[in-house]
């Protein structure tokens, strides 16, 4: 298996952008050379969580792209284009801007790993992997997500995003938390819509 964070070794190095690869079989692993981000402008996020469910089940959830908007809090739209290609649109973490890109799965090992990257021309070039490894003692599966992207205005954009409290690291952590709850508990905990003494109106009334 490749290192859990293949992009780390390339951080800070300059590499030419490679064209999008559309064939899964073309590459065995997410190769470091697939880096989408030039120079030191890239932002990399790694988060992991242990889920008390079998890897195959977790992989299957993740592989069905229709499931992802359930765990991403940010308004996210994913259209399936083919078995490995998809079109994504999301509201940017700042302003009213909507970001769109085409993504393609570049590595797919059932029950083990999914890797993807944006196609050439994406406004925010990005790439990521999700790995599923058995936890010690067979107590569930360690799910590790690595996301690498090129913010629109380099580090400035990342800084702005951080200030607005929508830092991608938080988003990934939150998505993994929701994913874990959905897989282990069958639902995502919420208090939205519960009563409080703040609302003066009594909209729901029993009796």
């Amino acid at each position, binding site marked *: 298996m490749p290192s859990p964070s293949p992009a780390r070794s390339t951080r800070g190095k300059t590499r030419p952008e490679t064209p999008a690869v559309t064939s899964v079989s073309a590459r065995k692993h997410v190769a470091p050379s697939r880096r989408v981000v030039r120079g030191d402008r890239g932002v990399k996020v790694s988060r992991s969580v*242990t889920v*008390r469910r079998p890897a195959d089940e977790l992989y299957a959830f993740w592989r069905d792209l229709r499931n992802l908007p359930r765990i991403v809090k940010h308004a996210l739209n994913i259209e399936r284009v083919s078995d490995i290609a998809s079109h994504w649109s999301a509201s940017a973490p700042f302003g009213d801007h909507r970001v769109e890109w085409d993504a393609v799965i570049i590595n797919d090992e059932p029950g083990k790993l999914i890797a993807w990257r944006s196609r050439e021309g994406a406004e925010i070039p990005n790439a990521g992997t999700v790995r599923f490894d058995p936890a010690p003692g067979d*107590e*569930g599966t360690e799910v590790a997500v690595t996301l690498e992207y090129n913010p629109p205005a380099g580090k400035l954009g990342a800084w702005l995003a951080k200030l607005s409290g929508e830092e991608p690291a*938080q988003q990934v*952590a*939150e998505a993994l*938390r929701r994913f*874990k*709850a959905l897989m*282990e*508990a*069958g*639902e*995502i*905990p*919420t*208090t*939205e*819509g*519960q*009563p*409080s*003494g*703040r*609302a003066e*109106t*009594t*909209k*729901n*009334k*029993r009796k």
Partner: protein
Amino acid sequence: MKAVCWMGKKKMEVRRVSDPTILNPRDCIVRVTATAICGSDLHLYNGYIPTLEKGDILGHEFMGEVIETGPEVKKLKVGDRVVVPFTISCGGCIHCARTQWSCCDNTNPNAALLEAVAGHGGAALYGYTGLYGGYAGGQAEYVRVPFADVGPIKIESDLPDDKLLFLSDIFPTGYMAAENCDIVPGRGVVAVWGCGPVGQFAIRSALLLGAAKVIAIDNVPERLRMAEAGGAVAINHDEVDDVQDALRAHTGGRGPDAAIDAVGMEAHGSVYDQVKQTLKLENDRAYALRQAMRAVRKGGVLSIPGVYSGFVDKVPMGAVFAKAVTIKQGQTHMQRYLRPLLKLIEDGKIDPSFVITHRVPLGHAPQAYAMFCDKKDGCIKVVLDPAM
């Protein structure tokens, strides 16, 4: 419905709010027949726990009748009579599987907040600030109960609410505190700091678990009398020169085998801590904790059911290390205790209603909070009745 809302420091109001609805498939709605004010509610009342918002509905000790169930609720049915534990657990994560129920991974929607403070977030609690999930509490006519098949215990007998209500928190909390003491039946001596409701249950639980002697430390006469009625030897710390000396006298110089801090973050007796806490230089006043650390015997156990929220100063870690003391603490793993303790009540081994000193209508909650906080009128435990 009517609900008891925190509207600011020492300011409780009974407000008309929306009735709760099913928000998730595993929820149920309970019509509350009895609820109580917990000592830990006073930490909220006094404004010591951050992330409480004006308008939050308090209350984590409650029981009642199931009146609605979500589509994924399998065990509970409409009409069931239930006591609801104060912690919310999912039943599916590794901690629930290990019966570390209060460490549940999946019930706190604001787990990130608690993670930032503590490294990891624990189970959500009813009516206990955003940090613990921000779930509306049970000091209300109705309450939403998430993960209904994992928390509530169904009551089949016709025992009155007064005997059952405290399964929701203080009886299991006192019991776990005593169980954590690793009492050797017939030999163990346990000292309990704080004779509030949790301390009272810790005292009786320690004796049920076979303690040879339980020593109760407080300075409120009626609380010490209640402790004595439960079988403890009382030390009024205002009437002895030195608690450590008094404890040595009661234990042949050894010190107690186990010390229970049932006081927590708002201990009285230290001006140093009072000032630091007021100035926000310290979250918690740990006077009782320090005393317990020094008093416990070598190789003994320190059990902490009292609530701490943040940082404490001047903890005699050297004493704990030098004496090889084991510290056990944390929120109660409620589901471990519900059935065994219900059996103790049904078998007549304990009647938890001994602790109740006041019964008032839910609408009188604001006055009841003030009375409980100031320990006025001999107040030890208040039960609120939504039907009164």
